[in-house]
């Protein structure tokens, strides 16, 4: 027996409002799953996530690794016969997961996003070297990607100084809102 979520209607409504996706449109043809390039990192396949939403199983969805592994490459929603915008659903689920403060299945990916936004807040543009260093510092892991880092520095793929926006106030305003 499958136990449906308690606040099923509320949960579906919330995600539908944010992402604009009508979940009763999904036929479970699994086209999204078959086209997804990153299934190996996911605990639930993309069509399963949609099914879980239909059944209102909030906790399972919000704590799944799928919503963080999805990079939003739009492959699934291009092949989907019902043109369901799955990346938009994943975005809404990530926002809700952060809001509800549930257990994050992929803290590394969340940390990476935070470091990217950190540099954008500081400079108005991303600064790859700082993102990498701060990300590694947080993870307390400097050795795993040492070779790649050195390769990139050697080929000058990582600029040492950031490129900055002059109008700092404007960027500050964006982040304060």
């Amino acid at each position, binding site marked *: 027996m499958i136990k449906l979520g308690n606040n099923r209607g509320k949960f579906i409504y919330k995600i539908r409002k*944010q992402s604009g996706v009508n979940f009763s449109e999904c036929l479970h043809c699994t086209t999204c799953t078959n086209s997804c*390039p*990153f299934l*190996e*990192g996911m605990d639930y396949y993309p069509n399963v996530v949609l099914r879980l939403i239909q059944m209102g199983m909030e906790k399972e969805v919000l704590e799944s690794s799928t919503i963080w*592994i999805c*990079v*939003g*490459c*739009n*492959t699934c*929603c*291009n092949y989907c016969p019902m*043109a369901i*915008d799955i*990346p*938009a659903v994943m*975005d809404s689920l*990530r*926002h809700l997961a*952060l809001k509800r403060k549930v257990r994050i299945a*992929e803290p*590394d*990916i*969340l*940390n*990476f*996003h*935070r470091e*990217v*936004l950190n540099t*954008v807040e500081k400079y*108005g*543009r*991303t*600064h*790859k070297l700082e*993102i*990498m260093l701060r*990300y590694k510092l947080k993870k307390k892991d400097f050795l795993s*990607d040492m070779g*790649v880092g050195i*390769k*990139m520095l050697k*080929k*000058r*793929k*990582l*600029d040492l100084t*950031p*490129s900055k*926006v*002059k*109008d700092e106030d*404007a*960027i500050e*305003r*964006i*982040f304060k*809102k």
Partner: protein
Amino acid sequence: MKEFLKNKKKPVQEWKRYSFFPGCTLKTSGHENTSSLLKFCKKVKIKLFELEDWNCCGSSSAHSINHEVGENLPLRNISLIPAGMPLMIACPSCFIRMKQAYLNLKKDEKLRQKYEEDWKTVFNPNLEIIHFFEIFSRIKLSDYIKKPRGKLNNIKVAPYYGCMLFMPPDLRHGPSFHGLMEKTLSGLGADMISFGYRSKCCGTYLSVAKPKIAENAVNEIVSKAMEAGAECLVTACSMCHLNIEIRCTIKDPIPILHFSELLSMALGAKSHKKWFPRHIVDPVPLLKKRNLL
């Protein structure tokens, strides 16, 4: 009659003016991409003006974890676009973010009001935001080059689009880029190799947070291109280029070139000495073998 023939032979092309949004990757790590792109645009008489004081489009991170920031970062850029000049974006991801933000503005009146208030500007409903690929439907390469065929000496190229062929629903009504690299490069004399992985995502930021997944994806792309007989892979996106180069672990991989590099070499640009030392897999031996250097 003579006069007419003479005129037909030499079509005079006027300089076109475009505003240009480089984006963080082209500005800071893909210098060779930017420089070859600028060279190419100069050769086809397009004058690019970098968007004054542009900021990051938000990349994948902003819309993933902070909806408001993800919405507002592109809006500031849109408010900076000078009127009367189309904005050209060379990064597929920046293009999607910016164009989507602009379409949202067009659709949503509330957002439009907020935008006008926030950025003290008036919404311009006639702005043109285009990807670099759309240039090719506006110009004819053969007008700028004598004998276009044979310029690339039958170098065997596998085109790699990554996720740029897939657009979110709102953007699907725009032009499609399917087959554009094939058409353009084969017109310049390259042999195009078709392979099934041309639109498999490179992994973007998983390259940092989940290196193993990105490594598998990248290795699959490169090895399938090699199996199909390609001598090099051509990417349309600076981020894909970076990911493929740093995460590829197979033995003796083929070099990865930027689309803009091959284009500007075909049009006779000479500054490639600055570009190739920045590649992890050195393309110089291959290009020498094909008499392209």
